[in-house]
């Protein structure tokens, strides 16, 4: 998709945007489960909410009285208890590699929601973090350039395994969190090889601290997040299909025809950081 955007670059520079007021009559009320568990945490959080009208000024209403359980191994389970605003927190536990995890949520109306199994993948083999400089046009001074820096990661992809990488980029400990800044890469084109990933979309200045988190996520999570990113960036514009409802790996067993939004995901995480020094 990035390639397509680059090809369409000249059109984009001619474009203009304006906020408009249109009537969107929407009234669906679906359960949403935000279940991203990561090895970075020891106390885990699953959030359960409901969808809200797109034009609403309110955040999603929380679901506060569900029974939330994560099953793993054969008969092990972890209870998640509601704390506030639809957040369900577990006691401290460490995610184990190669163990299938499955989420179960029982709503007060008796509906049972279950996820597909998720497994913690091996930690990513990242060797090092560096940064390169690039000259870009100075937006304030015509015909002048600025020297800025972008991060470069060196790593080795595991052979014979389909790996799915998700990158979080932090500038001075602040997560860069727009959909455009969500970096998703699958190893389809470099499986088993060493690789170099140049984060050319992220430009830093001298004295900035670059921090990168790499997460090994499942195919389900990768597909879900890729669709989310495509739809968020290229709504109705440069995507193969029209925007559609994002469905993860959750199902309402009591009412199979009722959609459950969100996803349950287990990911392995590592952090890297480096400060941009004066040349």
């Amino acid at each position, binding site marked *: 998709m990035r390639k397509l955007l680059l090809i369409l670059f000249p059109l984009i520079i001619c474009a203009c945007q304006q*906020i408009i007021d249109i009537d969107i009559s929407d009234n669906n009320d679906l359960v949403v489960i935000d279940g991203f568990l990561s090895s970075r945490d020891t106390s885990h959080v699953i959030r359960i*909410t409901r969808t809200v009208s797109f034009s609403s000024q309110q955040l999603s209403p929380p679901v506060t009285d569900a029974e939330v359980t994560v099953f793993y191994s054969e008969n092990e389970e972890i209870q998640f208890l509601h704390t506030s605003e639809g957040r369900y927190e577990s006691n401290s536990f460490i995610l184990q590699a190669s163990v299938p995890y499955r989420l179960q949520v029982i709503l007060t109306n008796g509906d049972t929601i279950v996820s597909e199994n998720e497994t913690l993948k091996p930690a990513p083999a990242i060797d090092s973090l560096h940064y390169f400089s690039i000259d870009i046009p100075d937006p304030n001074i015509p015909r002048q350039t600025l020297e800025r820096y972008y991060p470069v990661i060196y790593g080795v992809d595991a052979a014979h395994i389909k790996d799915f990488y998700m990158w979080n980029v932090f500038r001075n400990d602040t997560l860069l969190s727009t959909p455009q800044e969500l970096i998703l890469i699958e190893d389809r084109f470099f499986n088993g*090889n060493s690789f170099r990933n140049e984060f050319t979309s992220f430009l830093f200045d001298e004295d900035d601290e670059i921090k990168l988190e790499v997460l090994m996520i499942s195919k389900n999570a990768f597909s879900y997040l890729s669709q*989310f990113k495509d739809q*968020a960036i290229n709504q109705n514009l440069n995507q193969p299909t029209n925007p559609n409802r994002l469905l993860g790996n959750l199902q309402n067993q009591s009412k199979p025809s009722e959609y459950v939004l969100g996803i349950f995901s287990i990911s392995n995480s590592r952090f890297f950081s480096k400060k941009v020094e004066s040349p």
Partner: protein
Amino acid sequence: MGQPNKSIHFQEDTTLQLFDLLDQLVASDLPLIYSESRIPNQQVQLKAGMYSIKALISLINIDGLELTEKNESYVLTYTSPRKNYVYSGYVRDQSSGEVLIGAIVFVDSTSFSITNSYGYFSIQTDQEIDSLSAQYLGYQTTQHSAKKGSQSILLWPIKTALKDVTIRAYSVAELQHQALPGSHQLDYDEKGDIPYFMGEIDVLQETLMLPGIKTLGEDASSIHIRGGNNDQNLILLDEAIVFNPNHFFGLISIFNPEAVNQVQLLKGYIPAEYGGRGSSIISVKQREGNYQKFSGAGGIGFVSGRLLLEGPLARDKASFLVSARQSIFDLSTNRFDRNAIRRSRTAFQDLNLKANWRVNKNNTVYLSTYLGNDRTKSILEQTNRWGNNTATLRWNHLWNDNVFSNFSAIFSDYNYRVVDPLEVASYIGRSEIQNINIKYNTEWSISERSEIKFGTQLLWHKLSPGERLPFDTLSSTIPIVLDAENGLEHGSYISHSWQIHEKLSLQYGVRFTGLSTFGPGPVFSFEENKERLVDNISDTTYYGRNEIIDRFLRAEPRVLITWRPDGHRTIKAAYTRSQQYLQLISSSIIPAPTDTWKLSNRLIDPLQVDQYSLGYYQGSANQQWQWSTEAYIKFSRNLIEYKNGANLILNPIQETELLIADGRSYGLELMARKLTPPWTGWVSYTLSRSERRVRSDFAELQINDGAYYPDNHDKLHDFTAVIKYQPNQKWSFSSALYYNSGRPITFPSGKYEINGQLVTDYSERNQNRISDYHRMDLSCKWEPAGSTEKKWHHAWAFNIYNVYARKNAYTYLFRSSKTNPRSTEVVSYSLFGTAIPSITYNFSF
């Protein structure tokens, strides 16, 4: 009264004149009535023997001589047999010798012919004629002495025409009678009179002003004709297939205007000689070059510079044409931002070459090529390059004055290449489609009322859907080369045009088509009653080189009935079935250079389109106006649709990402034209619907629960008005006004948060619409006084695109507010939110 059955006896072989024989019969008391003044007196030879009068008359071998029995007498009459006189040849431009395609050559309102794609005509009459008249848009209608057999008719362009020659022009209604329903011969404006984007002169942009033709945005990158997909248009350049007709992201077509002779658009009835696409034919013919003298033409604007050179290789025998175009958009924008442009570049180029050789009066050979490419280079060093290459060799041969044939050998290629040295695994990517096309067509004019066309075509497709190779030895990219698809498409047709009656004509035919796909390559089978997923592959069969994998055979009937109640009105009804064995797999809703094509196979049946149309055409008595109304309904089967989140790039089993849909579209098209200066122009309006539904056994794959939903290009109302005013030779002014309903879009059905991100929830597809589109463009052309009399002709064209700076929505973005992340906002995204002035200089010598 004599005996009617009386015989006459010749004792020996006899040779005598007919009148002498008849005298003898009468002298023998045979009751024979005849008039010598109405019977030709020819020599008659008879063998010895006894003959009844009936036997005797039948032995006299004179066509038209007839004996009838009446009131116990014999009446001998003679009807002169109809003779066929054939007048054929080419219609050419007097000054350049270039053939004129679509010129009408006529004797009267019932004896006429329209020159074919090679400028050839053939008229048959039952009596000798002294003169033929010829008429062509932009040329003086003139009368020429006729001679039997082949001839050249030369027409003068209006600006240099002989002013004292006047002749009856063919009426507008009669021209409409000849035209196919749903067809347009584009009078594209090569002098910059009609405003286009940035003052560019363009062929495809004019199609957008015609009824029944829509785009997703304001560019022509995605042309949808009568509800058809973008890939259902067969775009031909000198008969070579053009897979991507656009430069500059659809704002400019690849057709260099100076090199174009004629453009024909067929969107209703499609004659049997055409096939391969479901919705339309857009046939662009390049000029031949000047057979008389060396000349040139060109122009320069903000976007591109053009130059054409042409001349005789051997006067009146052979000619050449060289035409080139180079984008200068980068140079133009360089004035504003030198640094950015140095890093990010966009460019395109065209080169057209053509040579022609009139070997003799019966043989002409044409050789033409086109080479074009677009290139972009981003600030991040990624380069993209794509383009079409074509080569066409044609041989026109006249077997006799009635039989015209053409043999063509054609090569077409479209390729895309990307180099990305900074990607996570730096790579060089490539995809390509090539085809070799051999075809032979014959037109046989049987009589003045009947013509047969037949021919055959072989089309070899080679599709390389994609490869990704390491950028250098340090790259971590795994080489990926997807299996090529090979297919032999064939088509044979026969059609008959029959003028049944002065007011009624019939054109019917059938095209037999087929596709055979060949190895090497794998074919995947999937588990029954399961979704077509990689995980559900049950078997893989590998086919060897040239081994047949799949085979399709189809018939495409075509019928056209024309009824002309009088000289001003025509009614036409038509039916066309088309098969399409090649469909576009697009990685975006808007066509992109990265798109690839896919041949039909056992999992993707050929696309089939059935169209029924009915048209009413009328011309004014004073020949200043013409009106047309056409209604159509169209049914499509086996359209390609995509699963949600389809992953198509370098996917070796794209079938797992595709769905199959049915389509239906229907509409009413109205058009009125004013033909005579100083005020000319047209108004067109289309009321139409275009919908599709996905067929799937799995509920989760159905879109909108399997109901019909609007196509992305469905627009209920579409209105265009083009007005041109030319008060004198020096000045001309024109304006174009566009209005259409907003295209379908999917509005959100809610929102929620996941992993700290706002997620928009969507449900029913395309149930809403963006705002209506409208725009006005203005143009003014100034040709300095006396320019037309000088060797160097030149003119300036001033254009304003989007005069009132309307911010037409291209799409809507649904996102969280930048000022208040808790709330959301809807953003209207416009490609051009302002008026864009431009100036273009055009010249010829």
